[in-house]
């Protein structure tokens, strides 16, 4: 009995020691969560493409599903994974602010209609963003939905003071909107958005295709991840993209497999791909992050994150974390660069 505290202390120390040393060998662990643009990662793992490329670069890469988006990023930040699928906004607010030097390895897609704002109206009523005034808006607070709302309001010279944000779990938002009476409003993403849009009297008043290239979905990894792992992942991704964008049996099989992972029919998954701007060609993705517009977008994201307290209670300004762009320029603190685009 007397030794118990020791055993517990040792167990806890061991736990942390193990999680920290996990990244020391050339075995890399990637966490992903369900989203249209990230289903290819499941395909990479299941089809054996990842293993093929890992072997080529003499490393081991394991791609694991963490069935809760925020939890997957938290686990990456705490050290349980070497890479994670995340939007640029969440990558900035969680790992980068948390002091984990993170590099965006793959710019996979941007939301081109996958996120949207819905209002339930009366039959025949024509609604717009202006009609959000005075309403209760259900959304996952501090998520890209919240960012989308902030951008939509700014474009219509309104602010969050004009409405009430109700933080609503993404697991319940679909059902709550479906059963709500006219006047209800929600901001959400696919596949929930797709189902909610089909509700009678639901009107889409704004979607992410109006802010193209702003909600960017990426794979981010620890900057010190072994080069072999990085090359293997990028290689497998490129091959997956060329399969996805091709024609023929291999493409159909891949899409069907991804639809199955996503829990959708092939037709539904294809419809979701329509509103996801996939970068099938890596040169296009590189062009995006090298463009001056992208820096402006990241400034919007930084401003939004700081204004909403995502940089922590003690952050002095939006500049306290540095973001490095491919041309070597840094936005924010040059001595605290934690998010790198390359």
């Amino acid at each position: 009995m007397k030794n118990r505290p020791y055993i517990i202390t040792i167990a806890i120390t061991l736990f942390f020691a193990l999680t920290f040393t996990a990244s020391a060998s050339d075995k890399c662990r990637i966490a992903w969560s369900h989203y249209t643009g990230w289903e290819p990662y499941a395909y990479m793992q299941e089809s054996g493409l990842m293993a093929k490329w890992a072997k080529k670069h003499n490393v081991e890469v394991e791609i694991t599903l963490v069935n809760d988006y925020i939890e997957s990023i938290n686990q990456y930040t705490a050290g349980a994974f070497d890479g994670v699928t995340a939007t640029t906004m969440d990558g900035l607010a969680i790992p980068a602010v948390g002091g984990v030097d993170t590099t965006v390895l793959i710019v996979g897609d941007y939301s081109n209609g996958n996120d949207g704002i819905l209002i339930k109206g009366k039959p025949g009523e024509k609604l717009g963003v202006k009609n959000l005034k005075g309403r209760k808006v259900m959304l996952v607070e501090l998520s890209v939905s919240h960012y989308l709302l902030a951008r939509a309001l700014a474009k219509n010279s309104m602010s969050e003071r004009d409405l009430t944000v109700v933080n609503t779990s993404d697991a319940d938002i679909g059902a709550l909107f479906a059963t709500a009476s006219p006047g209800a409003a929600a901001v959400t993403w696919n596949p929930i958005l797709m189902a909610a849009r089909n509700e009678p009297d639901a009107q889409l008043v704004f979607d992410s295709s109006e802010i193209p290239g702003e909600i960017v979905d990426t794979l981010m990894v620890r900057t010190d991840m072994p080069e072999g792992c990085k090359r293997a992942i990028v290689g497998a991704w490129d091959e997956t993209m060329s399969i996805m964008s091709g024609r023929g049996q291999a493409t159909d099989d891949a899409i069907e497999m991804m639809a199955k992972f996503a829990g959708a029919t092939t037709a539904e998954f294809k419809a979701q791909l329509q509103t996801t701007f996939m970068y099938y060609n890596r040169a296009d993705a590189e062009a995006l992050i090298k463009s001056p517009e992208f820096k402006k977008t990241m400034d919007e994201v930084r401003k939004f994150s700081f204004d909403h307290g995502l940089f922590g209670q003690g952050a002095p300004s939006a500049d306290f974390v540095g973001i490095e762009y491919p041309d070597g320029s840094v936005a924010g603190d040059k001595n605290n660069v934690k998010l790198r685009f390359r």
Partner: protein
Amino acid sequence: MFCAGAMRTHKLLGLHAEPGPLLNWVLTLLPFVLLVATYLVASHKMLEENPRAKLLPSVQTMGETMKRLATEPDKRTGHYTLLHDTTVSLKRLLTGILLAAVTGLLLGLNMGLFPGFRTMFLPFVTFLSIIPPLAILPMLFIVFGVDEVAKITLIFIGSVFVITRDIYLATMAMPKEQITKALSMGVSQLGAVYRVIMPQILPRLLNTTRLTLGAAWLFLIAAEAIASTEGLGYRVYLMRRYMAMDAIIPYVCWITLIGYCMDLTLRKLVSWLYPWYGK
């Protein structure tokens, strides 16, 4: 721990242990000290490696964050975050648990005393009490909307059946002679129920409510996590989105402290109002 052959009572071990006042304090504090110490060591190790690590923040960081949340009005709403969250959550919790206590008392008491009432409600209440309230939470939100009603209803449903069943058992255990005596002395039936039996049940009600508070907190936090604009549970889940453990850990401590104070208050209330109870 069987101490065979020991003549004098052991200070620490055994059924008849008699720890002195000093040892009592040491024993009480030891688990707390160990918990805090383990945290501090782990936190220190982690921060040494990465000074901005979010998982186990230092005491200083947590203090600064809490100071801001407690003393500076929020930029967007103008409320003092901690105070506002606390009042909103307490209002929900107390409304829910108060309704549950009153309903539980009336149901349990009448089920215990009136056979007709018992036949009608006992199987029904037993049946309902098995339903896991969290499983029907989305339904509550759909029926009652995302406002206060759904949250209070969840707390109510989560606590009322436990209280009812406990009060029922306590009432059943009352010596039936009391009622016979009261009736033969000319007390009316309702008088026997509410003036003879109920006063004896009330301390039990306070105790049961006290023990149900833990569950009530659970339901409060769960309800606030799903759809909310303010409250302690809302804040914890919102902070989780960017892993702000420097706010989450103090919030959890704060919730624990409030819960402990409520427990203590009810316990003191019982011994102050009903000094005969439990003797």
